[in-house]
């Protein structure tokens, strides 16, 4: 059982045009967080400041869009972040080519099983659900 939110935003331009908005710290600082450090490779470090809050994490996936992508394909950036005393969540930012621009699909999920891995007790965490997290991702 995974808590997840999903949002979509239509943007003008192609996925390649918009990739810097997801990966260039200058752009990220203007919408994602006040300060962003991202090491753009799987396993790279990720650090964000949002007001007084610092979130730390790591990069899971960096898949830049392929030029001239067909509708439905695009690029994806996934990272994990976690504020102190909070549980980690996984953010997936996906750029999907659409006929009249690009759709940015955001998913943030808090896979409860991961909390077990890092030793944070989670009441009501039924076992046997989907499994995510570093162990799987490393494959």
């Amino acid at each position, binding site marked *: 059982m995974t808590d997840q939110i999903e949002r979509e935003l239509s943007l003008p331009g192609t996925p390649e*045009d918009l990739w*810097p*908005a997801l990966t260039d710290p*200058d752009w990220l600082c203007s*919408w994602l967080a006040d300060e962003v450090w991202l090491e753009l490779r799987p396993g790279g470090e990720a650090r964000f400041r949002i007001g007084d809050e610092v979130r730390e994490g790591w990069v899971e996936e960096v898949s830049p869009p392929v030029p001239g992508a067909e509708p439905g394909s695009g690029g994806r950036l996934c990272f994990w972040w976690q504020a102190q005393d909070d549980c980690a969540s996984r953010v997936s930012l996906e750029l999907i080519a659409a006929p009249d621009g690009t759709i*940015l699909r*955001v998913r943030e999920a808090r896979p409860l099983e991961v909390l077990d891995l890092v030793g944070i007790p989670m009441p009501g965490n039924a076992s046997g659900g989907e499994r995510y997290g570093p162990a799987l991702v490393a494959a």
Partner: protein
Amino acid sequence: MSERDPAGAVFEALADPMRRRLLQTISGSPSTATELACELPISRQAVAKHLTALSQAGLLDRERSGRDVRYHVTPAPLSEAVSWMADVGGQWDDRLARLAALGEPVARGRARH
């Protein structure tokens, strides 16, 4: 499976933006369908339909007050998950609004600050 079904119903109920908005309004103050229809840009019938979905997911309780039924938010065991979703969802709404405002310059790849 029985443990997962209620949670599935909750997330399905919350997948709809209008239902999230209704839940937010009701969490501010318990309301009747008529009051909600006045506040929100949808008909009373549409409100009633959403309230049924939210009630069935166990997110709302009904309480009779005179001729009306007043809805309030259930302090459910899932409320932690629900409040996480509301918080995180709200944060992304804000972030995407900022990104949308940058949309054109981002697409053109100019306009650095």
